[in-house]
């Protein structure tokens, strides 16, 4: 057999899937039954540990906490007419209460970040890859 390129037989070798960094939006959801103030959230040791984890990973791109759905307004345009209504877009049990955009190597890292968020313990975190 002739000479041939050796690509990927060592664990540090190149694969495009591995060197790229992924961007995910973490949608932080719950049913709004528990609604800690920003100050309470800042004082929550779980939240502090989560923020420290993001810092350590250098993962956070941007994030924001959202006011509850009573303050939400939904806009639809149908047949050229703008329809404005009170409340969230989807009538569901759980609502998006905040989001964070993170950049990390793969889904497992995003899962680990999401699992550390306090809302994961009573609500849930939806991980959505950014469509780039």
């Amino acid at each position, binding site marked *: 057999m002739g000479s*041939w*390129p050796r690509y*990927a037989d060592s664990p540090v070798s190149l*694969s495009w899937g591995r060197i790229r960094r992924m961007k995910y939006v973490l949608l932080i959801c719950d049913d709004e039954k528990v609604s800690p103030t920003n100050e309470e959230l800042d004082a929550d040791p779980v939240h502090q540990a989560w923020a420290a984890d993001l810092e350590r990973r250098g993962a956070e791109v941007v994030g924001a906490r959202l006011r509850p759905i009573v303050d939400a307004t939904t806009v639809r345009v149908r047949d050229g007419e703008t329809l404005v209504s009170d409340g969230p877009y989807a009538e569901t049990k759980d609502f998006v209460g905040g989001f964070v955009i993170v950049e990390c190597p793969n*889904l497992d890292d995003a*899962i680990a970040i999401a699992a550390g968020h306090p809302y994961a313990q009573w609500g849930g975190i939806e991980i959505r890859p950014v469509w780039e």
Partner: protein
Amino acid sequence: MTTPDDQVRAAVDAAYRDEWGQVVATLIGVTGDWDLAEDAAQDAFAAALATWPRDGVPRRPGAWLTTAARHRVTDRMRRDAVGAAKLREMAVLARDPDEPPIEEIPDERLRLIFTCCHPALPFPHRVALTLRTLAGLTTAEIARAFLTAEPTMAKRLVRAKRKIQEAGIPYRVPPAELLPERLGSVLAVLYLIFNQGYDEARGEAEVRRALAAEAIRLTRVLVRLMPDEPEPRGLLALMLLHEARRATRTEAGVLVTLEHQDRSRWDRTLIAEGVATLDAALAMRRGGPYQLQAAIAACHATAADVETTDWLQIVSLYTDLARIAPSPVVDLNRAVAVAMVDGIPAGLALVDELAEAGGLEGYYLLPATRADLLRRDGRDAEARTAYEEALDLAPTEAERRYLSNRLYEL
């Protein structure tokens, strides 16, 4: 008469069975592109069929196939601009011109199986992807085994591969802290494949047998790749001990219960291997649900008959199992074992408790178990009602025939 061509054909078939997963796994590692990897592997096997009759079967078919598939990847990538750019990128990092000796090529199949079984994929997609990429079954074969239309199965595979790519599911063996959870998913996928091949209700006998054999083969690979983990061995033992009884589970289309199976027809070789595999797992002293289930299966497989079965041991194993993997089905099985140890009323009391709890609503084995216990207790009228209830719920013809026979005997 066997012709040289037949021999080559057999060698290619054997290589397909033994090397497909390894070739695909390596190529995914190289390219990160699942479709390209599969196509290139397919091409490599086609090339083997074309050249082996002329040049002879290579000394190391796996290395030959991997090399051939790599060349295909290079060829295909040269043809398009993006691929050509990637190829240059690879060439920069790939300076070693020599073929690595086979011992140094790491087995990439472990990465492949963990990725196929990632919990972010829907369970049926994990099953399909494992059978396609690791075992090399065609989409048509998988569709047939799962009684699904081929386009549906094809769509499932496309979606699974797309999600791996787009959601950034890593191609790797998970780190230690994730291993218990992720290994659980791998074992669940393999066990489901086995059960699909073991369940009398589902599909043609030949397809089922092949599927169970595939599950056993993949589990053997997993055991070899993770020699220090006890649960893969536990699962392998469980599969072997079940497989040993396959021939006796139905008789002329009627279900035969464990009690009435012809134990002289159980496969002693498989039982011996199952017990030895289980012993090796237990020696690691880290228990788990598959080891417990295998231990229960071993109690049955090594007993001469129902009377001399070690029911006390079985009760204790089911108690442990209910603790680490709680499920009403486990509780029901435990109730049967309790009836053998403490008498039928004790078992019946547990079954009635389960019926009241409602977790087994609609599950035919609940009334069927109750019916058998009532019959053995001489409570014929109640047994009859319970058999009728079970008959309404039983999902397969073999089970319905069994229940009708019992009802008829009363």
